[in-house]
């Protein structure tokens, strides 16, 4: 009777059963519609850019793990997310060799040097993109118009540019709504913005699809809803106030919400659990800070877009937020800090 050796473990002996790799996979599923729309509106160029970013991120993670004699961590899916996010933030006609370099940089410098998943201070994809923005300022602001004819069959020569060759500016390029506003003061229709009938980075153009992905993750309790809500409402209120003060200088709050990388950033990047605060109040402060920076950079900064820097600075603030915002512990009078 009872011949088996008993398995012992420490309590609790039951688990809720949602694991980290499941969460990561679900984030990937939630981004799929965004990815599909990116390919639909920008064609094969966008597909190549995104696939290259994913391949280089996953490959970098695998190689670095092997190189440091650790078990490969690609099965936790976080490198896939980094790759997709990086791809979604790049222009559709971004040269592939630069994209590849961006993926390597994201994972190696954005994540691996900090100690891998969970230890990184910043969102790895944004670290990679910040590097690309600094290294290739022209290429990263060369956009393709959406819904070009033949976009599914013709690959832009810029995408296939040789490493270190000066890429040719393609004839298919078009201005993003934010740069049109910043430099030419041209306002794009906000329904075009919401639906994504515009030019921009591969994955940032359709706010509606991004929001649906976010709702999916929030419903599955895999995303902190407070982060996008806090960022978006801050942007809406602040830019609303400016718009009321002078609507000839300042863009409308709806334009601010639906243009550029704000929606993509607020839903899929600022919500990266590793780089955001851990308490509900901390998260709201973090979101407010990001929203504030987005408005400040867009309105008064030299760049048309500020979401990337706003989120990176929000990530930088996170450890301090967690240090100062501590819930009152049961049975104690005040927060001890």
């Amino acid at each position, binding site marked *: *009777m*009872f*011949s*088996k*050796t*008993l*398995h*012992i*473990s*420490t*309590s*609790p*002996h*039951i*688990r*809720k059963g*949602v*694991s*980290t*790799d*499941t*969460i990561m996979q679900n984030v990937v599923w939630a981004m799929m519609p965004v990815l599909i729309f990116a390919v639909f509106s920008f064609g094969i160029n966008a597909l190549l850019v995104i696939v290259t970013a994913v391949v280089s991120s996953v490959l970098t993670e695998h190689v670095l793990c092997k190189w440091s004699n650790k078990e490969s961590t690609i099965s*936790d899916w976080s490198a896939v997310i980094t790759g997709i996010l990086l791809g979604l933030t790049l222009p559709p006609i971004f040269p592939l060799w630069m994209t590849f370099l961006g993926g390597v940089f994201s994972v190696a410098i954005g994540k691996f040097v900090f100690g*891998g*998943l*969970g*230890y990184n201070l910043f969102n790895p994809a944004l670290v990679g993109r910040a590097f690309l923005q600094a290294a290739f300022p022209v290429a990263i602001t060369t956009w393709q118009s959406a819904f070009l004819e033949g976009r599914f069959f013709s690959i832009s020569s810029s995408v296939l540019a040789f490493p270190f060759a000066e890429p040719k500016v393609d004839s298919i390029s078009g201005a993003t709504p934010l740069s049109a506003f910043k430099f030419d003061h041209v306002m794009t229709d906000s329904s075009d913005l919401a639906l994504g009938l515009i030019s921009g980075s591969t994955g940032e153009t359709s706010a509606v699809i991004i929001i649906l992905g976010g709702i999916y993750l929030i419903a599955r309790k895999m995303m*902190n809803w407070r982060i996008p809500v806090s960022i978006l409402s801050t942007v809406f209120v602040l830019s609303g106030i400016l718009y009321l003060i002078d609507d000839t200088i300042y863009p409308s709050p709806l334009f601010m919400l639906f243009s550029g990388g704000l929606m993509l950033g607020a839903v899929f990047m600022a919500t990266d*659990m*590793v780089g*955001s605060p*851990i*308490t*509900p109040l901390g998260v709201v402060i973090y979101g407010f800070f990001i929203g504030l920076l987005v408005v400040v950079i867009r309105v008064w900064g030299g760049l048309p877009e500020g979401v990337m820097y706003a989120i990176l600075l929000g990530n930088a603030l996170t450890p301090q937020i*967690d240090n100062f915002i*501590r*819930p*009152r*512990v*049961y*049975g*104690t009078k005040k927060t*001890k800090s």
Partner: protein
Amino acid sequence: MKDSFKHGVHPPENKEETNKLPIRQFSFAPLIILPMQQHIGAPSKIIVREGQEVARGQVLAAADGYMSVPMHSPVSGTIRKISKVPVISGQMTEGIFLESFHSSGQEVSEGSPISVDASPEQILKGIQDAGIVGLGGAAFPTHVKLKIPDGKSCEFLVINGIECEPYLTTDHRVMLEQADDIFMGIRYLLKCTGAKEVIIGIEANKQDAADLLTQKIPAGMPVTVKVVPVKYPQGAEKMLITSLLGKEVPSGGLPIDVHAVVVNVATTAEIGRLLPHGQGIQERVITISGPGVKKKGNYLIPIGTPLRYVLEQVGAADNISEVYMGGPMMGVAVSNLDISITKGTSGIIVFGEQDINKTDKIFPCIKCGACVGACPISLNPSKLGILAKAEAYETMADDFHLMDCFECGSCSFVCPSNIPLVQYFRLSKSILRKRKTAKPAAVNV
């Protein structure tokens, strides 16, 4: 006032397989093995000798000081051997091997009864003499808990009928079947604590028990039955006080600091049943459940019954691979089937090989905050876990309230990265305790 404490978790309850089954007497094992350390405090001191014949209910071991309780014979039989016996911690402790008489009537010997009109001191002494300890699982000597320290006063007597651990249904059945004993126990408790008001706390999944007890409240007794939401760890003393009284027990303090005393409902019933007859604890109600056993149920099992015998009787599968004493959230995994049932055993949960579906893969902490949203006392388990790995135990205690953690395991339960957070905290706390008691010369161990 909010009707429950903050945060907490909702593990699957798994109570429906046993909560309708009445308490049944378990058979007497041919050999009873009684460890002397079944409670918190000093082990009982054996007062019988090998070869001696003893009657059921007879005192076999006396309390060794105030922080100890006596041990009564669960069966009539012969003392075969006095030697070391295994206990659940994996250690060996002093114990008695008792061969029970076959087919004897198993009449219980009576001692001197304690009346409800006795003085508080006499009642406390009676509770100690009956060998009563917290039957919820902690096995803390009840008379020590009930002693109101000088300068403090007790207003509220809280009877804990929460039973928030999955699978367990012993308190539920005790409330349904032993209501009279419970109210008799409350009479004794009112007398010895001086409480003005009694609140029986019951989780909403035991509405039938709440209804029955409400109906049976004796005239003139200041008792209210309160139903609270189903949420783990609702049954933890501090959480229950918050849910019922809207007060927080101060950090490092005891319920009496908010004028409350909390007693488990089965312990209360036992006081009400034993004291009028001057008897001691010989058996207790235990839920046996889990996918690894056939005859699930709530059984009245003699203390000292070997676990192996229990599992054979309830038709446990041969390939059982995990057995827990207590519930799955805070219970202890058994490594050796030769240990016995003790006063603190509230449940035996059995899993067969095919029922184990665990991934033991541990991912890094991704700071998702699930643990922060689960901790009933608002600690930051994520941060504490990182500090534990860095062996920064003093920082954990000084800046992050480690010592307030009562190890409910909610953080580990929700952690998507499978980090054994509560185990880190148990170890950190014991390391800190050792450092505190260590002599200054040995501090840097």
